[in-house]
């Protein structure tokens, strides 16, 4: 289920924790699995749990608790916009509206071509840089004006 490369990355995480605490690596391991497979299927979660010698349901608890894990397929580009109050004061909600209109989808929807998924985000600890868009969980785009958003979408091939 998981590639050698992913397992190697997991091993590196496991090594950060005391010997009897392999489970500590589950969050990172689920991130790697999601990176590799695009989303976390039940089999992916079970594979991670198995690799870390933990009950599958315990891994599922983790995967379902933290909201950057995707328990269903998402588009190639998952864009998460923070709309929390500090961001909203500087256009966070308007940026989200702009994206919705531009992509023709609402929050938690994926474009028909499977390219984009839009998510509403909670505070990302970047309120001073509003509007903020997190791309595929990992790249944060700040000060997103309409032009910047157009540019970002254009760059998503």
């Amino acid at each position: 289920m998981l590639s050698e490369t992913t397992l190697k990355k997991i091993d590196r995480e496991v090594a950060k924790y005391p010997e009897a605490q392999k489970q500590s690596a589950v969050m990172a391991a689920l991130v790697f699995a999601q990176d590799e497979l695009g989303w976390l299927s039940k089999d992916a979660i079970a594979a991670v749990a198995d690799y870390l010698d933990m009950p599958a349901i315990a891994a599922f608890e983790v995967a379902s608790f933290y909201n950057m894990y995707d328990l269903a397929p998402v588009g190639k580009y998952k864009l998460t916009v923070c709309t929390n109050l500090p961001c909203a004061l500087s256009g966070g909600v308007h940026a989200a509206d702009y994206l919705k209109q531009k992509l023709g989808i609402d929050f938690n929807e994926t474009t028909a071509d499977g390219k984009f998924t839009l998510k509403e985000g909670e505070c990302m600890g970047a309120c001073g840089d509003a509007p903020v868009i997190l791309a595929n969980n990992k790249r944060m785009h700040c000060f997103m004006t309409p032009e910047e958003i157009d540019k970002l979408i254009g760059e998503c091939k």
Partner: protein
Amino acid sequence: MALLEAINPLLSAGWQKGGHEWRLENDNGWRLKDYEARGGYQSLKKILETKMSSDEVIAEVKKSVLRGRGGAGFPTGLKWSFMPKAAPEKYIVCNTDEGEPGTFKDRDIQRFDPHAIIEGMIIAAYAVGAGRGYNYIHGEIYELYQRFEDALDEARAAGFLGQNILGAGFNFELFAHQGWGAYICGEESALLESIEGKKGQPRFKPPFPANVGLYGKPTTINNTESFASIPFIFRIGGEGFLNLGKPNNGGTKLYSVSGHVNRPGNYEVPMGTPFAKLLEMAGGMRGGRKLKAVIPGGSSAPVLPADIMMDCTMDYDSIAKAGSMLGSGAVIVMDETTCVVKALERLSYFYYEESCGQCTPCREGTGWLYKIIHRIEHGQGRPEDLDLLLTLGGNIAGRTICALGDAAVLPIQGFLRHFRSEFEYHIENKKCLVPPDVQRAGSTFFTRNMGQA
């Protein structure tokens, strides 16, 4: 002391200029050599070379009256002194979960000064006798998580981490742990659960982490900024640090200013700096509009109306006296284009969304609160709703395992205390006192390139 001299020189000290461009240009001063050029790791060397005892280190931190920068403002030195001396296995944990709306200072510390955090954590580990540490970095700043890993590699290679650090016979391993989207993990015991590879559900306290922490072992957990302040304390002495601020409020502090100001950003100023001064540093009110309200310490702090806020100085005591709290130092500035009902609705949604679901009042209550405020905002409020909000709040606050329950209630109490009439207007007229086009004018999304004052 003049304002600019007061700034912690070990931090790259540039972002307080507030400019987006500046931050992009200076994004590469985080490496070990840059940090050392600013005088980094001198404090650690001094402590080890002069063979300061752990008690002496803790005493110095106590003297500085550094109060925890994570929100509760608990004196850091005192916290360290709670660690049992004899325990064989102890941990140091840094809280970089930073999810409290309005707060974005730890991200900049991670970005510009990862080594200040590392040095602070090493000193803390030395003081409390911990052999291992973790920095818990929230998932949204994955790029900085990776940067921190690089910084750790540098520190390891330079002998600041690992076995027999600087030949002083002291061992300490430090690792980064990533979060993945859960505000509650900022709560210290939820964070420990999360490092253990579980859901981030807070633990009942007592026992406190100093006795039963990570993996059941004694653990000291501090905020990123708290750790990053430590090297500076040993640079200028505990007393020097205290004197930068004001009594009972030692040192300088980073304030994250967001909202309707011209230059949102992080500003480091001495404790006790007038709010008016901070507002001025942040470029003043956007478009010259009138200040309406300020949340002075992160979303969980009760809102204060403009007049009260303009009389406050930025320190724990002054803000508390005004009926709010300094919290994480996140200053959310709202001008007259703001609809307070909509503002509170969004915050209430946040607490509802982020409740861990463990304890009844928070799990069930946060949703109920949000639904009521949502109704009010959407013209379906009932006259009895405002009192219902307050009595429900009373049934949540102080009844939960962790302080998220209180955090969900405090904003409601604050907004209703100072802006009740606007809520009543909403209920009665089924619309907002602030017309929609005025609200829209507050946003700069369509009109201006942000970050350039």
